[in-house]
């Protein structure tokens, strides 16, 4: 019979104190690991969703809120901005901007957000179509992999959007039945959680919501004004920045689609592609033109925010861009990396408090192991003397008690790991509802060996004093009293 086996028999001989020790140890280790897991995976997801976005532009408000809503889709947007305001950043050919992605939000379906945007978002998140095609026409939607899976959406599925971001049937829009035309491949980023449609679909849904009597004027008149604007602006600006091609294209586009044939064109378009009762109520915005120039024509319409990638992150002008925007325009610009670090700092306080509690529990468990070993030592002093009489070295007694502490620490570690992962997998559904993120359990993160060593050390320290006392057992005294 080895010392290990004897130690094992000894600790299971006293099941109640073993149970108490293991409960405390499991809670402590489990909580520590659980916090590490959640923290790590949140950070991981956050970092992944940075997607090399350098700047977010939106309405003035809390910069963190804007970033959370535009990049992570976990908070309400700060408000909307008009296309006119956003135009300089959305236009193709800006000298500093490599890619800009317009986002229009405000609606959701069963808690998943409907985002009006163009195809640039696919490049941003490196997303590919898995089945079907990209959204193009009014009320067509291409949906992220997770949404499709969770809600069971397939090609041809129809859904009604509801106002706001909560799953609430009362807020369902009367109009706006979307049809799924495509499903994206899973990317692991936030786009998996989104329902993508064209910007005009979002406008359309809300125009209806705004009321039928007023909106015809509101939309139609300014959009014509806007065409003028656009013409002028693009004429000047494009010459400066990107030369003829684009200029021509924009003009051309403009002329053909929304210029002189305005009424004919939209009417026509509508008949061909979407052809429902929407036409009569709002003929102007019906189009399947996904070009950026077309979007810019609707100068007084609103979008929520713009995600921007710089051409060069180290460019001095690019670095001063957010400050210029914030001080010179009604827009707000915020750098995600900075804001997210701020968020980590804020989260860090809460996490630290929780971690402290977890560590306290672990320490209490160590004390509990210490006390139970010490108690068992008193009960077993005759037994330990006996082992010495039978030829056991005093160092064997030292080892025996240490091993007992270490076995408990080892089991506590295993149970703690089990607990934290079971907790995470069972909580993952509710967490993913709140954060729109999936958590992975049962995977290694690299800190487990450290946690293991720390736990073993805890068991070692708890057992050390009892072990030394066992080492010093005075067998003559014990056996004389016995």
């Amino acid at each position, binding site marked *: 019979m080895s010392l290990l086996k004897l130690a094992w028999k000894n600790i299971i001989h006293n099941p109640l104190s073993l149970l108490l020790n293991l409960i405390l140890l499991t809670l402590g280790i489990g909580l520590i690991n659980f916090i590490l897991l959640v923290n790590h995976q949140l950070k991981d997801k956050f970092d992944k969703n940075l997607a090399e976005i350098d700047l977010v532009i939106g309405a003035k408000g809390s910069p963190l809120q804007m970033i959370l809503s535009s990049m992570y889709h976990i908070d309400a947007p700060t408000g909307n901005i008009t296309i006119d305001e956003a135009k300089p950043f959305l236009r193709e050919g800006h000298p500093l901007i490599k890619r800009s992605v317009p986002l229009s939000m405000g609606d959701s379906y069963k808690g998943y957000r409907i985002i009006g945007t163009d195809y640039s978002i696919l490049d941003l998140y490196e997303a590919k179509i898995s089945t079907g095609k990209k959204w193009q026409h009014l009320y067509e939607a291409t949906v992220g992999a997770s949404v499709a899976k969770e809600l069971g959406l397939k090609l041809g599925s129809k859904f009604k959007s509801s106002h706001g971001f909560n799953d609430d049937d009362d807020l369902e829009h009367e109009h706006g039945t979307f049809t799924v035309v495509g499903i994206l491949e899973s990317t692991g980023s936030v786009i998996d959680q989104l329902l993508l449609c064209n910007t005009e679909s979002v406008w359309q849904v809300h125009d209806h919501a705004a009321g039928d009597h007023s909106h015809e004027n509101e939309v139609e008149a300014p959009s014509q004004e806007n065409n003028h604007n656009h013409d002028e602006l693009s004429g000047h600006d494009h010459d400066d920045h990107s030369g003829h091609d684009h200029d021509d294209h924009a003009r051309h586009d403009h002329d053909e689609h929304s210029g002189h044939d305005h009424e004919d064109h939209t009417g026509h378009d509508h008949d061909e592609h979407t052809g429902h009762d929407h036409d009569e109520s709002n003929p102007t915005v019906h189009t399947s033109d996904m070009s950026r120039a077309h979007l810019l024509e609707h100068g007084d319409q609103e979008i929520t925010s713009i995600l921007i990638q710089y051409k060069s992150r180290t460019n001095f002008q690019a670095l001063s861009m957010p400050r210029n925007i914030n001080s010179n325009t009604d827009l707000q610009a915020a750098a995600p990396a900075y804001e997210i670090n701020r968020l980590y700092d804020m989260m860090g306080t809460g996490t630290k408090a929780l971690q402290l509690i977890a560590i306290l529990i672990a320490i209490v468990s160590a004390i509990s192991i210490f006390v139970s070993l010490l108690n068992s030592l008193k009960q077993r002093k005759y037994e330990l003397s006996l082992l010495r009489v039978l030829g056991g070295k*005093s160092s064997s007694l030292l080892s025996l008690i240490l091993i007992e502490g270490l076995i408990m620490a080892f089991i506590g570690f295993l149970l703690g790991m089990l607990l934290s992962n079971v907790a995470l997998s069972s909580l993952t559904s509710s967490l993913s509802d709140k954060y729109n993120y999936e958590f992975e359990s049962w995977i290694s993160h690299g800190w487990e060996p450290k946690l293991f060593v720390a736990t073993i050390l805890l068991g070692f320290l708890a057992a050390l004093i009892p072990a030394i006392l066992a080492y010093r057992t005075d067998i003559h005294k014990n056996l004389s009293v016995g």
Partner: protein
Amino acid sequence: MLKTSGITHAYDEKLKFNFPDINCGNSQTLLVLGQSGVGKTTLLHILAGILKPNQGEVIIEDTNIYKLSGNKLDKFRGQNIGLVFQKPHFVQSVSAEENLLLAQKMAGNNLDKKYASELFETLNLGHRKNAKTYEMSQGEQQRLSIARALINKPKVILADEPTSALDDKNCEEVIKLLERHSEIVNASLIVVTHDNRLKDFFNNKVELI
């Protein structure tokens, strides 16, 4: 064979013991009689290498045991001295058989399950092998502690009041077992007791005063 010479031990100024020299050959038996407080347990611990006396020598076979260093003395004791206590104590968490095997392991000997089984049979404990020691009767426990004293085939068997808790029938049975088995393994048997019932079983006696 166990031999002592000139052993004295003092716990403090008042509590001093001078012990008579003892000489007990292989297969021989010796009864050390004495009332409470005359140092019986002290002597037994000195003989067993548990308590180093202030003066004097204990020689087992050819070894002066208190010349051995700590760990070596522990090992020597494990291999050469079998101890039987007044109140049998065992490792509670393991079975009767495992207590025997543990004694082999602690002495640094190879496990000999066959010999352990033989001892169980001859001591009429064959059916209690897997019992927890605290579930056994007093007589069974005392027989088990004899088995444990024998398991490493020691040179000397020391018994401290082995019969004081037993009735006459069990008393005789235990003492006969001790005598028989120490003869089988060719060991010296020294019994320390105040139990006058044992006087008649021993030829060699030393009385402590």
